């Protein structure tokens, strides 16, 4: 081993650390979760790491596990591209590279003492799950907690057992909706703004003490935020998590540039006023 390697690795932010894929779990037909023992610094809810699959490449993935266990990083991944498809085929125990954690975090400090509205569309549930773990660990420090989750179809739902358990224990107020359903679905059908409309009529909803964290497709975040503004939340109380194809994750390469922001270092979590104008535009 060359001398000074440890020194180098501490200096070189592009250098992944070796970890292993463990506890692989299929979440739905194309989405799976796994755990990596983390050689990296502790993460904050909302941050992401870069995962390196040997011989294939790197991919940015939000950390979806509990920040109370910083020695583990959990990832929930949908098979959509080369690297995530390769990840999906890795058996447990496979070594992979990990670097991070990167990016901004959900504003939990600001949320304490407030009512919390977590609005998640599809796989957007994964980056907010660390928030839920953090909140439930000190549940008494928050007011009401709503988790509004929309998905395309009941078969796309994931974290189901966990969601139902939280709801059953009255830890949070869970509301689910799907775009389209089959006969087995007994819940609501529609879009997530329908859930927000219902919430607006809820006696317990008080915009002046509510803080919203929205994560999902951009269109969904845009309309959810607009709805929340109509419902009386001030712009500074709305947060969204954006996604782009991060390559370096360090603010060097510019692949994730979003108007004047770099999503990798200024985001992925943004306060609504910082991105409101951009989300209204196509192809930014």
């Amino acid at each position, binding site marked *: 081993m*060359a001398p000074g*390697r440890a020194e*180098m*690795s501490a*200096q*070189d*932010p*592009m*250098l*992944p*650390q*070796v970890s*292993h894929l463990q506890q692989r779990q299929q979440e739905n037909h194309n989405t799976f979760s796994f755990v990596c023992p983390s050689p990296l610094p502790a993460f904050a809810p909302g941050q992401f790491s870069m995962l*390196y699959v*040997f*011989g294939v490449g790197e991919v940015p993935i939000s950390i979806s596990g509990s920040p109370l266990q910083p020695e583990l990083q959990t990832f929930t991944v949908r098979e959509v591209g080369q690297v995530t498809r390769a990840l999906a085929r890795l058996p447990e125990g496979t*070594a*992979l*590279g990990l670097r991070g954690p990167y990016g901004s975090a959900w504003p939990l400090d600001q949320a304490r003492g407030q009512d919390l509205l977590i609005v998640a569309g599809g796989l957007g549930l994964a980056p907010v799950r660390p928030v839920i773990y953090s909140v439930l660990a000190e549940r008494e420090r928050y007011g009401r907690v709503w988790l509004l989750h929309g998905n395309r179809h009941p078969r796309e739902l994931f974290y189901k057992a966990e969601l139902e358990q939280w709801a059953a224990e009255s830890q949070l107020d869970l509301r689910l909706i799907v775009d389209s359903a089959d006969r087995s679905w007994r819940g609501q059908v529609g879009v997530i703004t329908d859930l927000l409309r219902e919430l607006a009529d809820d006696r317990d909803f008080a915009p002046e003490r509510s803080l919203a964290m929205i994560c999902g497709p951009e269109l969904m975040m845009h309309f959810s935020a607009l709805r929340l503004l109509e419902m009386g939340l001030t712009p500074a109380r709305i947060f969204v998590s954006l996604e782009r194809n991060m390559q370096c994750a*360090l*603010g*060097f390469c*510019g692949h994730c540039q979003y*108007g*004047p922001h770099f999503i990798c*270092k200024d985001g992925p979590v943004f306060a609504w006023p910082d991105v409101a*104008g*951009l989300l*209204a*535009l*196509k*192809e*930014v």
Partner: protein
Amino acid sequence: MAAQVGIIDRAQLQALFELLLRDGYTLIGPQWQQGVIVYGPLQSVSDLPEGWTDRQEKGFYRTEAREDQALFGYTVGPTSWKHFLYPPRQELFQACRRADGLEILPVTPEAPRYALIGVRGCELNAIQIQDRVFLGGPYADPHYQARREKAFILAVNCTEPGATCFCVSAGTGPAAGPGYDLALTERLHAAALPDYLLRSGSPRGLRYLQALQLQPATPADLADETRTLELAARQMGRQLDFPKAREAIQTAYAARPAFWQELGERCLACTSCTMVCPT
């Protein structure tokens, strides 16, 4: 460290190149290739674009022959130094599959020792902006750092601003610096080859300057240089109000969404703008 100034002729400029080559520097500088002045490896002064100039307007670039034998008598070409300071391809690490897993081996940044010949004030400023991005943030790029720290910069004070130039508005020219090792001003003479007022800007640059046969620069020479650069400053083809421009860019998305929408739709994402941009 006080800057030292002296005058060298073309032979002494060649001597400087040879000193740099002897010390293991790879010289990178301007050369005329297929109608364009581009940056590439140099061996001698004769590789420089002697007797060439360029004419630039929006969407227009042509090289043209000069009447004289100026070596730096052009504005700036379409290529930039960033190709050398952060090359398009860079090995970041090696990964080896082992029986017990994966070994990730760092790559020690083994940067070439580049001597960048003919860096203009605007370009030097662009390099310093790159420094902010790659070295000044929460993360430093060790590969860029290695190349940057080793790079020797011979700047050229610009006496040939183009029709699209605005370095005076930016406060980055036409005189280069600070941030160079050596800077020269090319002086044209009616009946003789051009000569060069050479100025040191770093201890490293000073060592090279002192190794050359310098003719002392008289107050008249310095006054003449000042005049030449003032003349160049008056020939700027463009002006740019930077505070206004910054504000316009920052508020652009909100103020003129349709404009940006249309621009975005026309963009082919070919990255040509990124390739030619000095930053």
